[in-house]
Each structure stands twice: as C-alpha cells, then as structure tokens.
C-alpha cells in the first residue's frame, strides 16, 4: 500500500513523455536580514509526471513555499537543477498558473475582469479569452458571479475566482500555495472536493503545498513529505486511493494509514503537527 520511495525519486515515466517537473539536488540558500546565511531547501530531488496531482506537506518553515516559488520562477535556487517540461527554469513561464495563499483579487475589477488579468498581461486574443474566462468561472461554479465585485464574495468564492484566473491562460501546470489555509474547515472540505474535479476537468498537472496531512492525502496522487531546518524531503508516498474520492474516504482504514505514516515521518524529526 504505502511505499516510501528512496531518494532521489527513481521512477521515470516512459522516455517519450517528458516529465512536467524535474528537480535534482536542488538547494536554496539566502542571506537573512540578520546577515546569517540560511539554508531554506537542502539537496531536494523529485519529479512530477504530467497531469499528476502532487502534494507537498510539511510544517511552516520547511521550505515548501520556497520550493514552489522556485518552480514558479519567482525565486532562484543556489544549487542543483529545476526543469519544467525538460527546460531549465529561468524565470516565470506563461505555462504556469499560480494560486496564492490569499485570493489576491483586485477589488476595483469585477470577477470576470479579475479572471482576465493573465490574458490581458499575456496579450492573448480577447474574444477567445473572454469565452475561456466564462468557461473557467463555470468550472469553479461561479458562472453567475462574473459581474460581481470581489468584496461581494465569501472567502471560499474568492479563492475559486483565483483558481479560475490561474487557469484562464490554459497553463499545463497549476501551482497552489496553501490556497485553502484561510478557509474554515467545512468550506475547506468542499473546496478539496471541487479542486479534485477541477484538476481532472482542466487536465493540468498540479503541485499543491499544504500543512494539512489530511488535505495532502485526500488530494494527492503522491505526497512529498518535507521536514524543516534545513528543508529536506523525508519521503515521497504513493496515495493509491481510488478516484474520484469523496469525503467518506477520510474515514477509511487506508486513508488513516497514509495519514499515520506521514505523521510518523514528521514526528521522527522531533516535530508534531
């Protein structure tokens, strides 16, 4: 059932399908405000297959957000290599959509105008993008709110808008940085269910950062477990629960087994969740 994979991840897809993401011996060191040199990510290696849903779980300060920023091209690693579909990551790519911890909506633009931001910046064909924006809003269940302003929406709805925005330019990779961390537990479960459907329908690869073990197991095809100071990968677990998963899966023995395995891995480093 659960299989802890040795590092670096030896599993490769068939050679004719390039990996969505390939991280090899990646480290990131930065100089803190105090002048100390801090190792945020230490010798991390893993890969993500195309259309895979990969979760990265760890406590705060384990470098998981730094890792996401490196994949997004927003931060630069100091050692090792990071590749996106076989190309070294040199900066932000139009092939990536990002969902941040907050919804990061512009309050002076309507929901539809917010979703259109990537299309405007990337100068995509306006008519086709508008159609796509409407489609993405329908996908996240907000078709009726295109002309609303962000302040009229709840936190969960705002985060749905930001997911639609991240998908509007049709990226092959969706990066999500604890997107549901600010939501209440029940909204969060609903959003997890929805996200599973959205990711399947949008046919994108997803890298999902979270500090919730349950969320990681529920959503992920695989879960990367990270431990802090310095940020290292403790294990990569296969989550072999059948899809589509519903919330009842959380009460099953295999689910509980995965959660316990991850908690043990995290506790082994003297950390409690």
């Amino acid at each position, binding site marked *: 059932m659960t299989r802890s994979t040795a590092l670096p991840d030896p599993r490769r897809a068939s050679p004719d399908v390039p990996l969505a993401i390939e991280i090899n011996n990646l480290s990131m060191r930065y100089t803190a405000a105090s002048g100390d040199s801090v190792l945020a990510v230490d010798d991390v290696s893993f890969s993500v297959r195309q259309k895979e849903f990969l979760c990265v779980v760890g406590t705060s300060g384990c470098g998981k957000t730094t890792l996401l920023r490196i994949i997004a091209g927003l931060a630069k690693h100091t050692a090792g290599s990071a590749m996106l579909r076989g190309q070294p990551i040199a900066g932000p790519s139009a092939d990536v959509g990002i969902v*941040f911890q*907050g919804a990061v909506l512009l309050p002076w633009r309507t929901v539809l105008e917010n979703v259109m931001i990537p299309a405007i910046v990337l100068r995509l064909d306006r008519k086709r993008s508008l159609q796509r924006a409407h489609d993405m809003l329908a996908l996240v269940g907000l078709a009726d709110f295109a002309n609303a302003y962000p302040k009229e929406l709840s936190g969960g709805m705002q985060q749905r808008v930001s997911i639609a925005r991240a998908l509007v330019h049709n990226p092959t990779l969706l990066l999500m940085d604890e997107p549901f961390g600010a939501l209440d537990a029940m909204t969060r479960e609903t959003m997890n269910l929805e996200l599973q459907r959205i990711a399947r329908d949008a046919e994108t690869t997803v890298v999902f950062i979270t500090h919730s073990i349950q969320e990681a197991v529920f959503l992920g095809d695989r879960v990367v477990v990270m431990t802090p100071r310095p940020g290292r990968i403790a294990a990569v677990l296969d989550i072999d629960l059948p899809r589509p998963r519903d919330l009842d899966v959380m009460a099953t023995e295999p689910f509980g087994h995965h959660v316990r395995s991850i908690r043990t891995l995290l506790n082994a480093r003297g950390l409690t969740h």
Partner: protein
Amino acid sequence: MMMRALRSNRLQLAAFTVVLLGLWQMGVEVLAIPPYLLPAPSSIAVSLYGGFADGLFIRSFFITFLEAVAGFLLAAVAGVVVGTLIAQFRIVERLVYPYVVALQSVPKVAIAPLVIVWFGYGFSSKIVVSATIAFFPVLVNVIVGLKSVEQDKLDLMRSLNASRLQTMRLVQFPTALPFIFAGLDVAVVFSVLGAIVAEFVGSQSGLGNLLLTFNANLDISAVFACLILLGAMGMVLHLAIYHLQRRVVFWGQADSTTRF
C-alpha cells in the same frame, strides 16, 4: 432609516448654530463690544449682503477661486508625475528625493515674496505659490500609495512576466488612488491658503487683497464676511474632491477623505 438619521443630525446642527449666533448677537449687544473688535452677526450679514450687491465679493471670490484651482491642478499633475518617477525609478529617488525632503522642510509661505519678484503682481505669482504649497501633500501620497502594493499582487504580475507599465496600470496606480485622493483633499485646501498668502504679499485683486484692505480700514464685519467666503470656498473644493473620490474609488476600502 439612514436618511432620517442624517436629516435629524442636520436639524440638530442647524438648531445649535442658531443658538450660537443668538448668543453671539446678544453678547455683543449686552457687553457693548465695539464693532472694530468683534462685530455682531447681524452687521456681518449686512456687510456680506452689501458686498454681494455691488458685485465686489463675487468678482474677488472668483479671482481667488481661479488662482487656487489653477494652482491645485498644477500641483496635482506635477505631484502625480514626480511621485510616479520617484516611486518607479531608484535613480530618480536617490537623486531627486533628498531635494524634495529639503524643500519640504522650508516653510513654503516664506518663498511667496520671492515668487512675487519673479512672477509679478498678477495671476501667475498666485498660481505658483498656490501650486508650490499644494504640491507636497500630493507628492508624498503618490509615493506612499504606489509603494503600498502588497507583495502578493506584485508576485502575481511577475509570475505573468508583466511589463513595468502593465504592473503600473493594472495594479499599482489603482492601489495608489485612495492615497492620491487623500493627498488631493489636503492639497485643495492648501491651494486656497497659497493663493491668499500670495495675495497678502502683493496683489491688486482677490479675496486676500480685499481682506487686507478691510482690515486696514478696521471694517471688521467686512473682514468676517471675507473669512466666511474663504471658508465656503474651501468647503466647496473639499466637497468636490470628496464626491470625485467616491465615484473614482468606488471599491473604497480606505475612505481617505473625511465626510462633512
């Protein structure tokens, strides 16, 4: 409900004003205060009416009003342009900002005599003094506003490889708008101050000029009439900015200007 509460508030205020004016009128009469020290409200009203009747007040009001508005517009445009350059370009910030701070600490009123020498007794000197005084609140608020954009929003734009101009247009400028309006609100009142100061220093017309003449003649009730007109001018300009802000910054998280 809200309309009714508002109306009853205004009614209370009006009643309070009537009581105050009544006390003032009675105090002046009972204590026999000479009119060259403190005129009664009734004699101020007479002066006000007389000034309007012969057209002097209206003419003077509009001269000062035009000076202030022209100075304000100049300050607004200059403040937004210079503030944007300082916020956007490190080199401009390093070279220009120290001068801005140094100039800011000079009392702007003190340069009015110099401006009169350079620009003469006419309109232009009034506009320049008015603009100089109104410039700084706009400038400071533009800089603060442009720099107040959350890192997340900048990351979003950067993740899309947005150009500097796109980031400016889509995120920074709208974010700065509430701050800019707060600056404009201060600036519009300052612009009236600047016009009056310049008129004091050297002029042939305008409310400031008129006020000095009345003061020299000890026609204090006419001085009060001028002050009322200046107050009205400041209020009109403030309300104009306030309503413009409500329309432009309709998402209004920070209601930057106070409500009257």
